[in-house]
């Protein structure tokens, strides 16, 4: 059993979290969230893999051959759908924030405060990440 996929999954989780914590741009932050999600895909698929096994398709009398685990593949597909929904929603919200606030910097955007004009994109150097 190779450790590499699990190390990759752990790395994706860590680097995605780091990206979210230090992000200066909401689009970048949402995509880091996708990276964290990808870590779950890699983890689940690695769990189901068998060396030398075939895809789990059993028509035409192929019963009995070793196959990879189809359950985790179903879990990953469900996860992708959920993730796509949340990412789409977040990106739509980010676009609306940009239209109204003129900036995408989380350090500047706070839910209970108004963004000062000097902090809007184009006025400061930190608008682009």
């Amino acid at each position, binding site marked *: 059993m190779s450790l590499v996929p699990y190390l990759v999954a752990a790395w994706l*989780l860590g680097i995605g*979290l780091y990206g*979210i*914590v*230090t*992000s200066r741009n*909401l689009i970048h*932050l*949402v995509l880091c*969230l996708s990276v*964290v*999600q990808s*870590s*779950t895909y890699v*983890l*689940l698929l690695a*769990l189901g893999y068998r060396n030398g096994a075939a895809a789990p398709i059993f028509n035409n009398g192929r019963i009995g051959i070793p196959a990879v685990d189809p*359950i*985790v593949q179903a*879990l990953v597909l*469900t*996860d992708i759908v*959920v993730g796509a*929904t*949340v990412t789409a*929603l*977040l990106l739509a*919200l*980010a676009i*609306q*924030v940009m239209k*109204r*606030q003129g900036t995408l910097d*989380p*350090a500047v*955007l*706070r*839910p*209970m*405060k*108004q963004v000062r004009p000097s902090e809007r994109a184009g006025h400061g150097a930190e608008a682009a990440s």
Partner: protein
Amino acid sequence: MSALVALGVAVPLLAAAVLASLRTVVRHGVLDAVAILAALATLGIDAAMMHHAITAPATIVWFGGWRPSGGFPPGIAFVADLPATAIATLGAILATASLVFSSRYFETTATLFNTLVLVFLAAVNGYCLSGDLFTLFVFFELMGTTAYALTGHKIETNSLEGAIGFAVLNSLGAFLLLWGIGMLYGRLGGLNLAWLGVALAGAHPGPAYLGVAYAFVASGFLVKAAIVPFHFWHADADAVAPTPVCVLISGIMAELGLVGLARVTMTVFAPAFGPVRLAAIGHDVIAPLGIATAIVGGLMCVRQRHIKRLLAFSTIAHVGLMICGVAAFDREGLGGAGLYLVGHGFVKSALFLATGVMLVRRGSVDEVDLHGKGRDMPLAAAVFFLGAVGLAGVPPFGTFTGKSLLEHAGLPWLPTLFVAVEAATAGAVLRVAFRVFLGLGDKPRDDGDDSPSDRESQEAESGHGSRSRGLAMIAIAGVLLVLAVVMTVVPGVRGEALGAAGLFLNHAAYAQALLRDGSYGPAGAVAPPELWSSVWVALGTLGLAVVLALVPIYSDRVLSPLRAAWKAGPDRVLVGLEWVHSGHLGDYAGWLAAGFGGLAAGLTLVLG
């Protein structure tokens, strides 16, 4: 009865689909009526299931007929036992209240609001009833996604940022939960809750694996439940969400994080932990988190001027109290926490709805702005005062019923914590009520300490509400308060709660019922402990709350010499605490990561 179990999820989903497809064709009022009918139908289904679960064994449905063979369940099960159906009923009541309120509240057509609330209700039902870990996860995510969309529904500045923070942090929690599911599936090869419990116990895992897997799974639920240090999203989201959505987030969604944690801990992990280690985890890991949550929530609650944010922090404090009850992992703790959850849900929702009425009639939710402006609104005043009494856990409200059981749970410091935190939060609400509805005290100076409430967003929500519109809205709040009382005076409710909690703790019976066609329940009532000592404690809490409410109102006159000492010492701690709640999403994510790491380390140590 088996058909009803599936209908609890299917009816609101179908109604949501119908509403979404007809929304451009049919008149808005008709759409609202259909939504409310669908929610009422779901409420009827949930109530029927709950009634059935009181006297008969829990209904277990295996979808597609995939029953367990040889002890291994290949299919997905729904388990309609008493705690699950009772909490699903609470969700249905609050969703109905939210839909009725919003039909009066929104001035402009709320395009997909009804659809989203119905999908949320379907997800709540599926979440409560699920007997399979991944199905639980899917409904967890569905509940979350609809809540994110509902929070940002007004599509204006603050709501958007609150919704983004809510979505990012809850999604991170969900991904941590998924890592936990992956760890469990990878080791054991199944996803059914009962089966995982049996298999995990049989695998005799080491403390490192158990600790990390439980940390992953628990973190997901703790984020949803807004437990320190995963709680930062909650106050920001509740403060900016439209009022009917706050009812859902604070009244049912955060509490469902707690319910999920309790369910998964008891079915999947408790058999592997064994009673000694389970108690150790409860006392040494979960209870400290609950204490921290209750204290942080209480302190921050008292500091707020923005009424919705104040109520949000009070929810955090009360959920902290509830998780302490769960951490006791005994009958009184779980039963009391369950009753407290329901009572708090009603009371908190009534308070949020009354705040919404203030917003519509007076155009603000800022305590300073509203000073004295509620003098001619007796119904809203009544809801606020009664709600504060309910938050203090005074009879005859449901919170008292839960607290009377929790005082007998195996945690000797719990009653003291309850008194302190309930007095603080009820005192804060009373302070608001005194200032707004009675006009007590001088109008406070604009200290500029707090972030100012956003006028723009609140005005967008409010309008020049007519008196009759306000009347209908406050009536719904009144109905919720009445329900909080009704749940107390129904005979035998404490006994049933204790019985149901005892059954909940019996993971062997649960596994037997699911895997070997046994029967799960009915629990039957258990004689509850006596009530009268709790009454005195509750009245004392209320008295303390009144004192805590009046002190800040009159502090200028009475306490000027102490004010300097206050500012130098304790106030600095509170200012520091507020600074931590910075609103910066990266900071919040950092706390989440640190919290998860600490949880994993702590659990491994306790288990080892």
